């Protein structure tokens, strides 16, 4: 175990190194400007989103107090739909569970999952002797560079097209030019070979409606669709705070997520409520049709229940991971996701890292970094008041240290 001071120094070194990197500054400034323009346009075309966000805020507030009930409700419905439902109290439990489902020597394709980052799922399944491919363009680039994601929606926003060309040239052993369309086409060709070889597809979940057990997956690349439809087994890892009471509620949450993430509409929205099935022969439902034979839903607590019981910090669970806040954060603008933990970024990421991620020792320096300038709150669809939460988190930290 590294000493607390070493953790602090390592964190600050990385933060400063990235803040001083010209390449990162270029990638970030291109991304920040493009994002701001995109979100403004999306909100201008769909102005009702602002009111909808307010409705979603009240909904999520209500759900935080009902986590157990919502898990139970969703579990029953999913089982009825033919899914196998598992509950993991900790990251270790989730890894063990998923490891048992997957086994070893398998090919795995995965859509982007923050919850997977939280528990280091790829690392674990690779250590069991599996071949694991991130199929989200950004996540694949990060897998190849052996780096952590930098943002919830745009994990590789700090990587320039020039650097992408280098990564792909290295991967394929032939010259790939720094031209974005060529790069994307190259990634497409590389990944398409993987889906039909895969034994397992893994996904996260943007939001789930408990009454129908429906997993919402928002994307534009089509990689999540492929990963969750082509392989015979689909495993969905879902943080329990993602569950809302109804399918209709889930749609509202989803729309707010994608709009504040800068999209007028994501090109694909997948709704998955069970393994594939058909009742075409004698109206008798049989699971395992053209799509996956099995759907495993793994609900993960990993600190969420504890956080949901904190009278003040529970507000952090309202976060729907649109990442709009990060684009307004002065520190994020310099250091991207190095201001954050493994899978949770920025000031709010300090709270999530403390309770759901690597723990308070890693979260402490992240918490000290927040400027409490409050600009994140101005763009947060959930009106999460970080300036109020941050002193509270620090209070919990200093009290633990005083003991």
């Amino acid at each position, binding site marked *: 175990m590294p000493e607390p001071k070493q*953790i602090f120094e390592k964190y600050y070194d990385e933060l400063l190194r990235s803040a001083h990197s010209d390449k990162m500054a270029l990638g970030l400034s291109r991304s920040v400007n493009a994002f701001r323009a995109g979100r403004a346009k999306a909100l201008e075309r769909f102005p009702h989103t602002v009111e909808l966000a307010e409705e979603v805020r009240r909904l999520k507030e209500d759900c935080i107090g009902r986590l157990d009930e919502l898990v139970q409700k969703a579990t029953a419905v999913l089982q009825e739909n033919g899914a196998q439902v598992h509950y993991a109290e900790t990251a270790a439990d989730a890894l063990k569970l998923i490891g048992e489902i997957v086994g070893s020597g398998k090919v795995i394709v995965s859509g982007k999952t923050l919850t997977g980052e939280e528990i280091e799922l790829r690392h674990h399944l690779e250590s069991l002797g599996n071949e694991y491919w991130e199929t989200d363009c950004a996540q694949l680039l990060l897998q190849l560079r052996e780096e952590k994601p930098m943002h919830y929606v745009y994990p590789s926003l700090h990587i320039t097209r020039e650097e992408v060309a280098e990564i792909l040239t290295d991967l394929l052993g032939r010259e790939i030019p720094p031209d974005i369309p060529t790069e994307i086409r190259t990634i497409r060709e590389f990944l398409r070979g993987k889906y039909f070889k895969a034994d397992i597809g893994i996904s996260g979940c943007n939001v789930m409606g408990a009454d129908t057990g429906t997993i919402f997956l928002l994307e534009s690349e089509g990689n999540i669709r492929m990963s969750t439809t082509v392989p015979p087994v689909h495993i969905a890892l879902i943080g329990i705070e993602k569950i809302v009471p109804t399918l209709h509620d889930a749609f509202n949450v989803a729309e707010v997520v994608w709009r504040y993430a800068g999209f007028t509409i994501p090109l694909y929205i997948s709704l998955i409520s069970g393994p594939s099935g058909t009742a075409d022969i004698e109206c008798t439902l049989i699971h395992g049709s053209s799509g996956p034979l099995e759907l495993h839903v793994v609900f993960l607590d990993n600190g969420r229940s504890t956080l949901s019981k904190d009278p003040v910090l529970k507000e952090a669970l309202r976060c729907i991971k649109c990442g709009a806040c990060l684009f307004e954060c002065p520190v994020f603008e310099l250091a991207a996701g190095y201001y954050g933990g493994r899978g949770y970024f920025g000031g709010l990421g300090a709270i999530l890292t403390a309770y759901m991620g690597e723990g308070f020792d890693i979260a402490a320096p992240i918490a000290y*970094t927040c400027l409490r300038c409050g600009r994140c709150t101005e763009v947060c669809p959930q009106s999460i008041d970080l300036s109020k939460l941050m*002193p509270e988190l*620090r*209070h919990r930290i200093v009290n*633990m240290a005083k003991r």
Partner: protein
Amino acid sequence: MKNARLYIPPAFRIISDNIARRGNPLGLKESDCSSWADGLQLPTKGETILYTGCEYQMTAYIRSLVEVLQRVKFKDSLFSAFTGIQAVTGKLGLDLMKVYSRVTGGESETYNRILRMAALILRKLDIDFAYLERELYSGALLYEYGLFEELEEQAKRVVKQFKEAGVTKIIALTPHSAEAFQQVYPKFIDDFNIDAVPYVSVVADALKKLGTKLSLPEPLTVTLHDPCHLARSLKVTEAPRQVLQTINNLELREVALNRELTGCCGAPCETIFPELSELVAAKRIEELEATGAEAVITLCPYCYANLKRSLDETGKKLRVVDLIEIVYQALEASNARA
């Protein structure tokens, strides 16, 4: 909880210790905090006070403390500092007075001058106010750091002082103290009912009542750097603009990220991450420079100091001016002509 051994930045301990012992975060002497008022003959008792919170006064010294904090090798286990009787600085063999002696008179005079102007502006605008000679710092930083128990103790001392002096209304010179009194104290002190108004709001109202236009002796183009806590926590964005509108010969060029979207000056992380603080300041200066203004107006001593240092180090043409300096100059020039 998953972990209990946690790193606490030395600044947390030193600042809370200074506040408890000397009434202000840097441990400045009483005379360093109050000398600005020498010769002004301000009343020291009254219902309304001008509250400086020792914040402008300490701005000149922050960097010296930060530099020392960077040089001193701290052990991990300073936890006992929270409960120990001996001063943390003493334990570390740090002599703060010696540290601060490197700060030149000119540097501290910059801020004392602004304080005098702040008081003289109120006087010129016929606002009755007093000033507490042995003023205590609000404790805003203790709240920021999550040192709630220490904050509560400080808040009680501050409130006791206010009560003894018969204070019912505070003209809060800095956004931090205005925020502390308006939003933090009510959480920690039962029945806290002292009205705290940001200085700029008081001046804006008085100038409106006055109804006459002021003027600068020379034309000046400025941009306005809204302090985060003023614009967002306190939602005061129009008062400084109203003030500027009453001044002729002054052109305001708004920075792209203004009002509630204003950008941080970097000061909040200075005591813990000084290099990061400089990078944040440099980024904000880029935004402010893009307006093409000659000067950037600030309303917070921390913004003033952090932006100024960054500008001085890079030798840029843009200069930092406190709104107080502009108003004072305009009032002087306008009086002179009348």
